[in-house]
């Protein structure tokens, strides 16, 4: 499709469909007829009925719209990007982060700060990991880039707090070890696609 169609800003010449509006009455007699028909048409009563029906729906058929927010919450999309979570390996319970530093590197607002060191097994160990949520714009790049699916976005969107620091330490974001069974994989940026298995090809080692 060419872009020409969208570049045309001339509103009048586009394919707008006009509603079949009736013409304004011309003669006095037509005006009178319009007044009479509008007077005796039950349109006003239909309006009354609609509101009454909605009242009955709300009161007796459990169709009240209101969500009493702090007490009830609407479900949010699994792709929602709220406060981050650090996930653990399901088998061992160890945190997934391998300290590669990609998230720190890619973060466009420079809000991830981390320090790593080698532990006694010469494995990378995360000694410091904080996210400055005063700067984070919840872009999701960190979750997308993480090779281990370690840093993901969670569902905690109520981020008003006395101190921003209350969310941002590694231990705060890490899945508590006793909640390991409840840990959910993240569906959003960087997640494995549902048909990932089909897309795996054998590495061509035969060359």
């Amino acid at each position, binding site marked *: 499709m060419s872009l020409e169609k969208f570049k045309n800003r001339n509103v009048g010449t586009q394919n707008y469909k006009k509603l079949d509006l009736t013409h304004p009455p011309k003669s006095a007699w037509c005006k009178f007829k319009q*007044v009479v028909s509008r*007077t005796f048409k039950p349109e*006003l009563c239909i*309006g*009354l009925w*609609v*509101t*009454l029906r*909605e*009242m009955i*729906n*709300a*009161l007796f058929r459990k*169709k*009240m*719209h*209101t969500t*009493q927010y702090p007490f009830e919450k609407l479900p949010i999309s699994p792709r929602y990007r709220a406060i981050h979570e650090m996930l653990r390996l399901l088998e061992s319970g160890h945190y997934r982060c391998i300290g590669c530093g990609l998230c720190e590197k890619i973060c466009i607002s420079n809000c991830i700060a981390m320090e790593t060191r080698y532990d006694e097994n010469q494995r990378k160990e995360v000694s410091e990991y904080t996210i400055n949520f005063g700067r984070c714009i919840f872009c999701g790049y960190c979750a997308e880039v993480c090779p281990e699916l370690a840093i993901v976005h969670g569902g905690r969107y109520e981020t008003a707090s006395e101190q921003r620091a209350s969310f941002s330490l590694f231990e705060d974001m890490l899945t508590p070890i006793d909640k390991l069974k409840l840990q959910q994989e993240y569906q959003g940026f960087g997640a494995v696609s549902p048909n990932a298995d089909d897309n795996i090809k054998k590495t061509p080692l035969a060359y």
Partner: protein
Amino acid sequence: MDATMLPEVTAVGVIIKAILILAVISAIAGFGTYIERKILAFMQRRLGPQHVGPYGLLQLIADGIKLFTKEDIIPQNANRIIFAVAPVITAATAFIALGAVPVFPDFTIPFVDVYVPSIASDVNVGILFVLGMMAAGLYGPLLAGMAQSNKWGLLGSARTAIQFLSYEVVTGLSLLAPIMIVGSLSFVDFNSYQSNGTWLVLYQPIAFILFLIAGYAETNRTPFDLLEHEAEIVSGYVTEYSGMRWGMFFIGEYANMITIGIIASIVFLGGYNDWWIFPGWIMIIAKIAFLFFLMLWVRAAWPHVRPDQLMWLCWKVLMPLAVINVVITGIVMMAI
């Protein structure tokens, strides 16, 4: 009526009734705001006031505290005296009007055997008096809007004048036909005329509808809430008012709604006569409650009209209808 019963009208009795009217109607007017918010909410599938007290019932008290303790501001260039008097006019006339409408059947206080007619004063021109009082009540908005040196207030009072010019003729003419049938201006006579169970609305359906329409304009309710329409003129005549002065306008408006409800039920809907197994006082409460509900219902359902549309409606549609109605009523009465 028994001859042994004491004659009724004593000064003490009238004062007690006046105080009762003041207390009960202000309470009901306050309660009316709660009901209005609840019903409007339900009609839009919301919950309405919910958290103050059970089902939000104590919201009234919260509102009252707010109104009473708010700072009373008089704008710099306002005419102080008129600014202060205007809300009193609205509230006072609303209550004075209620003095001449009967609500309950006459009754005898048990044990003391005092016969009490349940009307503060049965003026023989009751209808005229009440309508006149309610019309005088519109001086409140008119003066308030002009005194506050605010353009929105001024627009509000201009609209008050328009409203005043429009509905007043319809109210009078629509009530004229029932008055001709009954042959009296006293509410008590209207009530006894319908004591055989035939409501006047059966003879005068058009007059009833016309009166309701004019009544909505008179009480400044949607679809005719031109005086303080928020979407157009900020708050109209109450733009500069706050605290208790604003509250008085509010109470006056709700008291007027109740008055219109009472007049409509007494003149057209059989008043406080017993009906089937229901005693009269239940019937009249039910009727007033229904008419009050109707006002809220209409507010939820219908958009409001422009000032010129209101004038057009009143002078070109409703007034001719009312006149025709009066003429036909007269011809039928002469023929019978």
